[in-house]
Structure formats: C-alpha cells, structure tokens
C-alpha cells in the first residue's frame, strides 16, 4: 500500500462562543477525526449540517476563524505534520499543495476585482511565473473550466452562478495542487449546472490526477464520484470506508439511516425514511455515543460510554458499540 497523501489523525478542534453577559461556551466542533487518503483518490465527506465537515477542511488548511482552535491531533500531508509548521511555512503549502473551493462561490470572489485577476493572484503570490506566463495560464485555466477568454476582465457580478463556481475551480487549480478540498461545490446550483460542475471535477481529476475531498449532502453524488466515504456525526467520524463498504455494508446505525433517507430509483413510491430528532448541539453534547438520543437500536452502554472507532475490515472503520467484537483480526 502506497504512502497516504493526507493523513488526519485524531484531529480535535473547538470554537469559543462569546456571549455578552454569559460565560464563554466551548463548542467541540471536531473530536478525534481520523482518515487517510491516497494520491489521486476522491474522498466524500458526508453528514448533516453542522457535523464538522467544513471545519475539518478549514482545520486541515489551518484556516479556522479567530475563535476556533485546534487542540490536538495531526494533519500529515506527504508525511509532514502541518500543525507544527509556522504560519509562514504554512503559506507555502496553501494553494501550491492544497487548495479549496469554498462553499458559495459568490462570497468567495472579491466583488471589486476582475475574475481573471483573482485567478492570477494565486500564481503571482507564489512567484511561480512571469507576467506573460501568468496571463497564458489564466486563459488556459478559464478554458479548462469552459469560460470564454473574453470574460477574463469581467467582475463576479457579471458571471452566472455556475460560471462563478467554475471560476472558483479554475482558481483552485491555478498552482497545480495535489489535493483539492471542494466544500459543497454544487450547493445553490440547479441540477443541470450541478451535473456540469461534477463532470468538470471528475474530468479534472482524471486528467490532472489530483486528490479531492468532496464535502456534500448529496449521497448520490458521493456514490457516483467517490472512492471512499467518511460519514461524520456531531464532530466525530461515525464510519468510514470504501464507497462499496459504506453503500452496501454500512455498519453504523447512523449511516444506515442516512442511506435509507435517500430515495431509491428502483423502488418508486416508497415512503422516505427520516431520522427523528435533530443533530446534537456541539455545546451540549450528550454523554456516551453522540448519536444515541436518535438511535433506535441503542444499548444502555451507548448512553454512558462513547464508542471507540473499531476497524472492521481493511479500510472500514465504524464507531459503534454494536460492532465491537467484530474487529478484523488482521489488524
């Protein structure tokens, strides 16, 4: 087995929430998040809103907002722990090695800067090329994502939503990174444009061979494009494994419920299942397993002890008491 490109180990992060007149509260946004990915792989990061998907990406790039803090863990990129680097050293990794497509492309583009200039920005910032080469590269990138070169000098408000998203992707590819974080690249886009953007991501991955972490709510998208899947719940990894392991042999009750709540094209007219309750508040986490208040197969143990991650097969991990004793002996 080859060396993982990105290896996140027991990453824990928290946010301090300040409220006037009340003591500061701490939200444990991530706890013991671990997963690996190989070069050229696509990993899907799924889960409900607020389960820590975006936080995981931001923490990996060390871009948490000012009130966020990584308390422990490792983010190993090509074997180097990014959390031990200085801010200056970290800047060298950003965009040249790993880049990110933010959620909601309109906000991630500077409204008073031409789109082409914003794409060029990343390249010039890292002093990779001279001006003419940068220009050529910008045009090349725009054409790669299907934007005519005449649009180079337009401002973001002159672009359509899909074009902005594609421009963001072009920007993310500017410095030829080996790892791309795509944070819900298809939200707020209509279905046609969603398909285009996903097709684009897949095309880029095949031609440029970069690894992608895809954050999404859409399990259908994950099944289509991802090699492996990480299911998160309440800031923890509930289950992770290959796409086949997750879709056909899901072990964690949360994953099973999540899959059941998506429509099945082969069985039309079937009642859609939903998971009762709401995700836990990160400031008031339940004791024991975080999913236990909503779990219909819970044991008494689940409400007292947080289940450890159990390795079931090669690459398949689930954090559930029900699966203990089924560990792969090979491990």
């Amino acid at each position, binding site marked *: 087995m080859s060396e993982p490109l990105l290896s996140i180990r027991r990453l824990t992060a928290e946010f301090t929430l300040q409220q006037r007149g009340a003591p500061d509260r701490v939200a444990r946004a991530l706890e013991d998040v671990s997963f690996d990915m190989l070069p050229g792989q696509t990993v899907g990061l799924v889960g409900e809103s607020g389960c820590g998907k975006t936080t995981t990406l931001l923490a990996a790039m060390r*871009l948490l907002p000012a009130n966020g803090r990584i308390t422990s863990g490792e983010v190993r990129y090509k074997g180097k722990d990014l959390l031990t680097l200085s801010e200056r050293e970290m800047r060298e990794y950003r965009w040249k090695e790993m880049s990110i497509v933010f959620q909601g492309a309109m906000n*991630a583009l500077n409204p*008073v800067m031409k789109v082409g200039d914003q794409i060029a*920005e990343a390249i010039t910032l890292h002093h990779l090329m001279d001006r003419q080469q940068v220009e050529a590269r910008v045009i090349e990138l725009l054409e790669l994502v299907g934007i*005519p070169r005449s649009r180079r000098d*337009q401002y973001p408000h002159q672009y359509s939503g899909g074009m902005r998203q594609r421009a963001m992707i072009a920007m993310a590819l500017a410095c030829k990174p080996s790892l791309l974080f795509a944070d819900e690249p298809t939200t707020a886009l209509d279905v046609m444009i969603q398909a285009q953007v996903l097709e684009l991501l897949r095309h880029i991955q095949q031609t440029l061979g970069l690894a992608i972490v895809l954050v999404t709510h859409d399990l259908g998208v994950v099944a289509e494009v991802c090699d492996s899947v990480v299911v998160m719940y309440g800031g923890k990894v509930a289950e992770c494994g290959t796409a086949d392991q997750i879709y056909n042999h899901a072990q964690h009750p949360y994953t099973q419920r999540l899959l059941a709540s998506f429509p099945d094209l082969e069985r039309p007219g079937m009642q859609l299942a939903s998971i009762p309750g709401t995700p836990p508040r990160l400031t008031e986490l339940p004791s024991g397993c975080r999913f236990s208040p909503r779990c219909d197969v819970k044991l008494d143990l689940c409400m007292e002890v947080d289940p450890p991650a159990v390795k079931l097969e090669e690459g398949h991990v689930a954090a559930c008491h029900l699966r203990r004793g089924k560990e792969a002996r090979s491990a």
Partner: protein
Amino acid sequence: MGEGSTRFKRSLLEFWRTFRANKLGLLGAFLVMTTVIAAILAPALTPYQPTDIMRDAAGHPLTFASPAVHGPLGTDDAGRDVWTELIYGARISLTVGFLAGFIAMVVGSLFGITAGYYGGGIDNALMRTTDVLLVIPDLPLILVLVATLRQMQLHVSPLVVLIFVIGLLYWTSTARLIRSQVLTIKERQFVARARAIGAGDNYIIRKHILPQIMPLIVANTVLIISTAILVESGLAFLGLGDPTQPSWGTILNFAFDRNAITNGAWWFYLPPGLAIVWVSLGCVLLGNVLEEMLNPRLTGHHLEGGEKMVAVQKQDREHERASA
C-alpha cells in the same frame, strides 16, 4: 502594455460619462476646479503683486476704493488690490486644506485599517486614543496647540504648524468610518479565500481591503479638505494665520481689524467669505458624488445595465467569429 493603457483610457472615459450625468457632482467639480485654476494661474490673472499698493494720480494710496473706482474688487485699507489678494490667498487656503486633508486621510486610514483588521488589544488601544481626541473640543485644543507650538521657536512657517495641527486632529472620523468598513470586509469569504491561497496580512490589506474602502477614503478626503479649509479660515480669522502669507481667513481678519464693516467696504470682507463658501461647498458636493460613483457595487449590475450587457455579448460574438 498598449492594451493596458487603452483599458485604462476606457475606464476613465466611462467614469467621465457617469460623472457628467450627475449635475451636483459637476457643480462641485466646477467650484473646486475654478478655485484651483485661479490659484495656479494667479500671476496671469492680475497685473499686481498682493503687496502692491495702488496710488491715485497724486501718489496717495488709494484706500477703501470701491469696485467702481478700482479693479474688479476695489482696494483694502492700505490700498492693496482685493482681487489680487483673493487669488493669491486661494493658494494659501488650498495648500493648507489639501495638505492637512492628506495628512488626516493617511493617519485616519492607518488607524482605521490597523484597528479594524487586527482587532483585539490593538483595536482597543487605537480606538480609545481616537475617542479621547474625539471628545476634546476642537477649537480650544487647536488654539492652545498652535499658540504653544509658535512659542517653541521651531523655525518653521506658521502655516506648516497649522497644516500639521489640523491634519493630526481631524482624522478621527475617518478612522472610525474606515474601521467599521474594514470590520465587515475582513469577515467576508473572499478574505478567507485570499488567506487560503497563501496571502499574508499585508497582501490582504493592500489587495483586498484597501480597494474596497478606497472610494470611502477618497470621498472622505475631499470632505476633510473642506473641513480643513474652514478650520484654517477660522484660525486665521482669530489671528493664528501667517500675516506674511495671507489666506482667506487672514484677509477676513484684516478686514475686521481695520473697520472695513464700519467703512462700508463690503468688497473687502465679502469676497474672501464667499470664496470660502465656494470651495467648501464644491468639496462637499464633489465628495458625496465621488463616494457614490467610485463604489463599483453601486454601478452596472448585469440585470440592469441593458446596454452594457449587449456590448459584452457583441464582444463575445466577435471573439467567437475571430477564433472560428
């Protein structure tokens, strides 16, 4: 290179086209420009020096001559040509106004950006300093400062003292305004994106925050220039100007001291007063209109600017034809 300059020319032209449509802005620009031109061309607009004394046929000084008797604006108590004094005074008033306004802009922007961007303790320290300056009554403070600095025998012109005192006291509103803008801008996602592409603080401030607040800074500077001219006039009227380099305020001071009002010499005190109104009104109009215009978010949205959109499509089509 050539492409860049034509692009610049085009955006200048576009700027002018929008600007031309705004009557108030045009008026403001007219008021300011006429004053600036008069100040620059002063020697060409009058045959005299501001210190020259007009004499009648018998060689006696022509004192308090009305406009009907002499020149466009008559003479003052010593027989000097008021029109000449006025346009040479414009040089002093404008110089003090522009330089003090510029200093206030630089200091205010530095304070505002630093406080807003870095936040925390730095913000607190800078903003409390601003608060202190903001609550001290301006005029007494300036009077005391100017008088004290004069006593110190600094061997600089009193005008330089005025410029620095005004410039270093009138940046507070700019600082607060800019800080509040920076506070909202730095939380926007494109700043996070800039950080993600590996940009440092200086780069983010220069490339992403400054351009966004530039319209505000420019408009505010024009407004501060008008304040600076008014304050300078007030101080000069109170006798804190430089009598050897009379500004409009100094002329008013002379007129008041030498009983121009009791002598009915309205041509002595009205022109400098109206000139002050003229240029500060011009600055205010211009400042407000500039703020409206320099903000790209307020112009040409693609759903509204029908004409613009058609032009872009035409470009697209031409490009396609060229590449086919």
